[in-house]
């Protein structure tokens, strides 16, 4: 299985590892991630989770600022359309992402870095798949260099 291979690979390679921000909606995706954990499903350890009440809470500024501060990739995950705990939050989020993703690509940010998914509370396996996919994709495009703000170094 794909995810098994990646787990092997991440253990072998001692070089750069992607750092990915995973913004998960509390009611579905975060619960799905929790289920993956409780079920001991293995997936790449590269994500840092940020829990939000709803995917509709996600401001495009969060995504751009994370890229600026050094995250190599950002995953935003919410409830499936029609299942939002707040009824329509994910519909609004969907429109925001529909505009944000092509805009970032247009500017030159690699398409693989910012990805969106719907993962429900019962989809532990699905969550692991999603994280594996984005980690693989970001690993392929390499460390983020373009929108990263240089901090002083001497």
């Amino acid at each position, binding site marked *: 299985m794909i995810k098994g291979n990646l787990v092997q690979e991440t253990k072998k390679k001692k070089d750069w590892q992607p750092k990915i921000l995973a913004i998960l909606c509390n009611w579905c995706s975060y619960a799905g991630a929790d289920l993956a954990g409780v079920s001991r499903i293995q997936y790449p350890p590269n994500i840092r989770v940020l829990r939000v009440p709803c995917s509709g809470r996600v401001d495009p500024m969060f995504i751009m600022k994370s890229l600026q501060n050094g995250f190599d990739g950002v995953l935003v995950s919410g409830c499936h359309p029609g299942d939002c705990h707040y009824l329509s939050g994910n519909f609004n989020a969907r429109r925001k992402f529909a505009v944000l993703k092509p805009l970032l690509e247009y500017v030159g940010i690699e398409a693989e870095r910012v990805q969106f998914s719907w993962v429900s509370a019962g989809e532990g396996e699905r969550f692991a798949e999603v994280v594996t996919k984005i980690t693989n994709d970001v690993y392929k495009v390499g460390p983020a260099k373009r929108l990263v703000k240089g*901090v*002083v*170094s*001497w």
Partner: protein
Amino acid sequence: MIKIEKSNFVTFIRSLSAEYNLFAPTGEGRQSAFREVKDIKQINSQIQITHNSPKTVFLPQTEILFEFKGDDIQSVQKATKPMFFWGVRSCDARGLNLLDKVMGQSKQRPDDPAFQDPYWKARFDDAIILTLACNEPASTCFCNWTGGNPFSKEAGDLWAVETETAYLIEPISEKGKDFIKKLSGYHTASEKDEQKIKALKKQAESCLQPAVDTKTLKEKLPKIWDDPLWDEVSAKCVNCSACAFICPTCYCFDIQDEGKKGKGKRIRTWDCCMFPIFTKEASGHNPRSLARERVRQRVMHKFNYFWETYGESLCTGCGRCIRVCPVNLDIRDVAKQLLETASAA
């Protein structure tokens, strides 16, 4: 007064590079500015006045004051060679002197270096400014309204005029005199050259609109502080700050720290009194929350406050704000309106 033939100009420029970092007008249109040049070809001698003033070099839009790591502070180093500025117009040279009054010299405590901006002084004190007379002022130039003149020798270290075949240069300040002494191998200007300068000056002055004396605004402006005229004047202003950023004498700045995990830098950037939050206080109160108050403040600063504090007009009549304003708020029209209203009051 020495004469440098245009055919010899390359040699003159090259001779400067040993001792100075040469800055001259470069670029075109709205990218024209004073930048360091290594080659004479980079100099754009067709520009009447650069879009960006020399202020961009002495008081840059953004500047790192120092960098810190934990308790360690590393200050920014001073340049090894002083700067030589070729082709500064008299309004800009005056502008730099005005900025120096605020940043470099301290009026209140002239002997206390704590009141002088070290970053400004590191750049300005050793710099040599060559004021190049304007043979063809633009239609937006109004230096004669603020006590200036296209052929003014008031500001700068050296003064130069461009004729068809040569540049005629004479010293203004002590620094300029020392500079000229070091030059050799150039002719002295002749009587004919002096006549040419007089003719060019007359022609240049004829390009300007008749002067309106803005000095009188100094006493008159406080009388019309509450006049409803300010509503009219400020009605179309959108508070964008283009005028202040492009102005050779605006000097307001903001200081911010940026960094993380104990490492960072302290940055100074331009700020503008036209921004709505410029005077916002920690309590949330904003004494200049209305556009009319901010426009009034800017006009007063140029034509009244600076007179009271430093005895000069802060506006040099360069006309950049008129060219760049997106709603065509013309400071000349404003000055005229104010004088009319103030005289009637």
